[in-house]
């Protein structure tokens, strides 16, 4: 009996502090937010909070912009996750080779991640509009003109920005994974006559698979939650064609002053993204090799 008690106490001694902070800072507000999703409220303290039951939830299925934002965000997430991971992995492979410029390259590739999202968006806005226009004149490449003024260029502008910013982030995680592959395995394979490509396919990729899972999960959730860069790069424009989910939710709350409705959207958003992520992680876990 004492042993069991002790084990429980030890468990909570180790896990407790984190759980406490998590609970107060994340769980409680989230649950409270769910309560608000059943109400109509303008966000001001001590103002009237009116219970409206499921009305917010029913309304959002008719909300064209919300549904559009959902699909736009999903499209964006898929495209950027593939690009970010593909490029991030390639970069990790490259800088873990014995190159002289490895260290410098690692820093350069990671540097984009050092700038906060909001400012990054402003900087890239400047680049897409002004710099591209200057380049268009200089190089006579018409397609560089008018970026961010159409939905397509807005979409790809966001993708380019995120890929630039996050490839280094995934690279860091892939490097950690690559470096934990025992050298002997790779040497043995080389002695057996493997080429780089076959080494990659049969040894590296399976052993790095957990990193794939992690990165894909992180990038997917990151893409779905994107707000700062969306705001500063396109502000959802033109005509809300690049408005992603987080912005739609934020605008509902703070520009239309509909807190309850926004919370309902947030709950649905959470549920859908959680489902997608669980599916994604389950699928990837099957391919992992635990060493």
């Amino acid at each position, binding site marked *: 009996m004492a042993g069991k008690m002790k084990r429980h106490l030890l468990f909570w001694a180790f896990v407790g502090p984190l759980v406490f902070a998590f609970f107060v800072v994340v769980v409680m507000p989230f649950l409270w937010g769910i309560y608000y999703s059943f109400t109509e409220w*303008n*966000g*001001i*303290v*001590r*103002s009237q909070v009116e219970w409206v039951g499921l009305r917010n939830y029913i309304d959002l299925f008719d909300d064209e912009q919300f549904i559009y934002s959902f699909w736009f965000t999903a499209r964006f997430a898929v495209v950027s996750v593939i690009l970010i991971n593909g490029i991030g992995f390639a970069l990790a492979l490259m800088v873990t080779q014995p190159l002289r410029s490895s260290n410098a390259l690692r820093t350069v590739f990671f540097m984009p991640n050092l700038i906060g999202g*909001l400012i990054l968006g402003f900087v890239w806005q400047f680049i897409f*509009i*002004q710099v591209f226009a200057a380049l268009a004149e200089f190089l006579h490449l018409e397609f560089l003109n*008018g*970026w*961010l*003024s*159409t939905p397509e260029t807005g979409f790809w502008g966001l993708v380019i920005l995120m890929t630039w910013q996050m490839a280094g982030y995934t690279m860091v995680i892939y490097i950690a994974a690559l470096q934990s592959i025992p050298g002997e395995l790779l040497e043995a394979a080389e002695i057996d006559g493997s080429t780089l490509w076959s080494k990659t396919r049969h040894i590296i990729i399976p052993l790095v698979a957990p990193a794939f899972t992690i990165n894909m999960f992180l990038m997917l959730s990151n893409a779905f939650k994107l707000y700062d860069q969306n*705001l*500063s790069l396109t*502000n959802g*424009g*033109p*005509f*809300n064609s690049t408005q992603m989910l987080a912005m739609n939710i*934020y*605008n509902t*709350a*703070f*520009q*239309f*002053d509909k807190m309850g409705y926004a919370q309902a959207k947030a709950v649905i958003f959470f549920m859908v993204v959680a489902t997608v992520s669980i599916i994604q992680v389950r699928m990837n876990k099957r391919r992992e090799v635990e060493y």
Partner: protein
Amino acid sequence: MNSKKSIALLVALIVMCIPALWAGGAQEAEEAGTDEKVKVDIFQFKVEFKDQFTELANEYMQENPNVDLSIKTVGGGDDYGAALRSRFASGEEPAIFNVGGPQDVADWLQFLAPLNELEVTEKAFDGVLGGVTMDGNVYGLPYNQEGYGLIYNKEMLSQAGIDPAGITSFAKLEGAVKKLDSMKDELGLEAVIAFPAKETWVTGLHLSNAVLSQEFDNVNEAFNADSVEYKYSRGFQKLVDLQNDYSVQPTLSLDYSQQVEQLFAGEKVALIQQGNWAYGSIAGVNSDLAGKIGFIPLSVEGGVGDSIPVGVPMYWGVNKQLEEDVVAEAKKFLNWMYTSETGKRYVLEEFKFIPAYEGYDVSKVSDPLARDILDFSARGKTLPWVFMGYPTGWGQNVLGIDIQKYVADKMSWEELIAHTTEEWESARQ
């Protein structure tokens, strides 16, 4: 990394943090040791004047050592409404904050103190308090007055032989624009106009106001209206088309900075729709040009063609739910700011505001745009600002967005009118 090194690193980091803790600690000590001081927290939105405002507050505190004024400005790109709600939610309610018009007053009514008894309230010009008066109680004090129209480059217009004072109707405006367009090369223009369709406040709030202020007599009428008639729908459309067709393209990604600082101040366009607040931006890039600009009205076909909208962009409100002495001191400060000699000097010369109150020597107003506004006002050629009475979010997020769609040929004008009317009506149910 061996443990000695990591300990050394940790110690180094902690040492570097000492200045931070020192500052924090000093502040706590100051607050603890001086709790006879009345603390007035000001939570405001105007980034552009915050340094001068802080100076003014310091002068006030020297004259009134029992008061501690603390100014918090909401950083640019941020949403004042969201920040204000968060501030109140956190329990740290400010004593002085900002409200924009009837909607804000209705939302924050339980917090707003009536300000009728103050001297400054009596000195306010007729009409500026309309948007913040409810049931006879005045709940806000104007920051300043602002006005907008088409800012024009004097030299270019004179070169083209256009007399700005003669533009009193849409037909004349259109004629002038076409004339400038035909002389693009001589004047060195990329285009006549720079139309920032990206900035939904310019299109959805200001441009629409130039038209809708001829339909709603004042902001309260707009606020109480169940629907919008669009009496001058054609005129509105023509203004959008005129600006968009003769503008540097693409307009959907054209923002304030490109419009004002790059194109107009760079003398690549001759006309831009903006207000007197743009003076600082223009002067910052081309101080020479900044002395040679003025306003042309946004003439509405079939409607008023010779006036510019002048109004109050933002008001100060006082939180009545705090302690009595805090509320009293807050009112006293605001009153002082706009009626005392020191305060008035700051308002005119440091903040460069157009005063919304009597008792100012307006000959001291220096920049040409502000002078033009005073001139239009003196001649009675102004229209009110009614967009603060639009349904919440309607101006920018419905109308502004639809104008973007219209400009991109994704929506016809009829659809725009129908959709925005529908949204107004459903918001007002």
